């Protein structure tokens, strides 16, 4: 199945189009059923693709059979396929969750989600920088529309900010691409990596400018420290199920940084080796710090979780900047875990907000949550995971991160920042959880006339939460998998051979 690599992009495109056509377009029930089944099939395709890549190594696919470096190639290595699987799993859960009624609050929810899935998968799989830009735009325009889904006033303003800042980001991205193409003469990432050591004279400095501009764009998408300001408001005003889906969008920026940083600016690439390492390292640390302050200062749960997303982006960036296979493997494990748990927390915040009446998800005393046990237990598990307490996946991720950084000289800076940040997050999340679930007016308890959560919502949220124990139970195979993916990423020569034509 040589065409399999293109399926994670083509199938969501096809399903989004089918969802717009008559039998699905008119009838809500059929549309929901079709959307869930399409998302499930996409997940199966991705799992099959992981299996193929595990058996046959890195697979590359030349679109239209135009060989690299002239045509666009899709490159499926373990890192890319594990992330496409992650995003399809997340999409499946969000689609399931939305079937309880969120999808009917605006138009075209299901097709847009599948277009988003297509864009994100494409960004993960592509081996060409310009194609990466195109997929960025695909996922952005889907996300713009999703952000406006069932929106009100606040939503419009947040959407305006988000759209403007991303359009400026796209302009910078194109300038960076033009600069790099002007000096390197190629846009295929592997080909660029091979050509960069041959640069001479002034071209080196122009390439450095281009590379730095590229990092600015990725930092914007990943919400790194000075460019993170758009995130909390956007995520807190979007409908929670969409915010949960967006939890993966910062990871697209992180992934692009991993790819570009480890291929174009690999340690052996002469004058451009480890370009911007200090910026990524200190930017990551500053992002952890500012995100933690954001978590402490948050007045409602969705803002709190949005700040947790920032903290995870900071941690990942700091890890990537080390350019060590161990650190990258730890980052991959942490990425899988943090994306799913943040998504689960967004969904819990939504369920809690619906059962608390006017207080919604604000962290204050209010009426008790109707389904206290079901939501409380799930929230407790998710909170333990996100803090990194022992039995769950957050703990393994944390230990691995600490161990990976311990081999570096920089651990003297990283450890205090990371550990103090974890402690403060523990305080903030515990406070939020105890106030929301325990500190309430018992008088209001019998007057709680809100609807209990739909079983579909509970199911979707619990699937996301229970991935965490699974990541612990199967820790050995999964960590081995992460290490293998990281080794693949750091062996540029293997990738060069597979992409071929070079």
């Amino acid at each position: 199945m040589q065409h399999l690599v293109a399926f994670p992009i083509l199938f969501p495109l096809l399903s989004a189009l089918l969802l717009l056509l008559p039998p699905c377009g008119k009838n809500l029930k059929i549309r929901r059923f079709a959307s869930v089944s399409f998302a499930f099939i996409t997940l199966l395709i991705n799992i099959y693709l992981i299996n193929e890549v595990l058996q046959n190594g890195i697979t590359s696919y030349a679109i239209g059979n135009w060989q690299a470096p002239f045509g666009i190639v899709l490159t499926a290595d373990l890192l890319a396929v594990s992330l496409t699987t992650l995003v399809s799993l997340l999409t499946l859960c969000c689609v399931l969750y939305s079937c309880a009624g969120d999808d009917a609050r605006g138009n075209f929810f299901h097709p847009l989600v599948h277009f988003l899935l297509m864009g994100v998968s494409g960004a993960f799989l592509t081996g060409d920088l310009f194609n990466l830009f195109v997929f960025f735009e695909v996922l952005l325009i889907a996300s713009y529309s999703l952000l406006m889904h069932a929106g009100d006033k606040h939503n419009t303003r947040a959407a305006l900010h988000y759209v403007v800042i991303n359009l400026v980001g796209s302009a910078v991205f194109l300038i960076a691409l033009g600069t790099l193409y002007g000096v390197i003469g190629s846009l295929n990432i592997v080909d660029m990596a091979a050509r960069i050591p041959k640069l001479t004279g002034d071209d080196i400095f122009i390439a450095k400018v281009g590379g730095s501009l590229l990092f600015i764009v990725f930092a914007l998408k990943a919400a790194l420290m000075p460019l993170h300001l758009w995130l909390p408001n956007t995520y807190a005003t979007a409908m929670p199920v969409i915010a949960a889906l967006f939890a993966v969008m910062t990871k697209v920026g992180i992934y692009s940084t991993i790819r570009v940083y480890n291929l174009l600016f690999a340690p052996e690439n002469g004058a451009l080796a480890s370009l911007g390492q200090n910026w990524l390292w200190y930017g990551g640390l500053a992002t952890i710090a500012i995100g933690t302050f954001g978590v402490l200062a948050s007045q409602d749960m969705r803002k709190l979780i949005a700040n947790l997303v920032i903290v995870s982006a900071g941690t990942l960036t700091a890890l990537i900047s080390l350019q060590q296979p161990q650190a990258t493997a730890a980052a991959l494990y942490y990425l899988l875990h943090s994306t799913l748990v943040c998504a689960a927390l967004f969904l819990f915040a939504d369920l809690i907000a619906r059962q608390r009446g006017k207080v919604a998800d604000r962290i204050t005393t209010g009426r008790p949550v109707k389904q206290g046990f079901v939501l409380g237990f799930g929230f407790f598990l998710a909170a333990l995971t996100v803090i990194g307490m022992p039995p769950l996946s957050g703990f393994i991720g944390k230990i691995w991160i600490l161990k990976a950084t311990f081999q570096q000289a920089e651990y003297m800076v990283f450890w205090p920042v990371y550990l103090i940040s974890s402690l403060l997050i523990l305080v903030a999340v515990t406070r939020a959880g105890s106030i929301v679930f325990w500190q309430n007016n018992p008088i209001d308890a019998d007057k709680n006339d809100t609807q209990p959560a739909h079983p579909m919502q509970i199911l979707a949220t619990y699937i996301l939460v229970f991935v965490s124990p699974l990541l612990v139970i199967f820790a050995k195979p999964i960590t081995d998998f992460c290490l293998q993916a990281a080794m693949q990423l750091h062996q540029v020569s293997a990738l060069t051979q597979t992409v071929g034509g070079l």
Partner: protein
Amino acid sequence: MELLYSICVGVLVACGVFLILRARSFPIVLGLTMLSYAVNLFLFASGRLSINQAVILGASPQHADPLPQALVLTAIVIGFAMTAFSVILAIRARADLGNDFVNVQGSNSTVKKAGSKK
């Protein structure tokens, strides 16, 4: 030609950035449009500026780089779609919020200041 070309790109970017920093939706849309024009020109120049050179091999003594032209075409199409979206969003924001200010806090004070000066 290079000098004239780079001045054009620079002026367009400067105008675009200035308009975007106005923090009102209509100037921002104009600014983004100018920025995307500048980007298109810049991308086009990344294949080196040349005269009397076809992009087809053998049609002229020397050939120009065809890839930047393809990139510009893609960038124009995407930029066009994005501009259309931002125009619609700006209109929606104007209708929803009652003014065209992008920021919440700045809006009232700026209005008062502008009013008092006049």
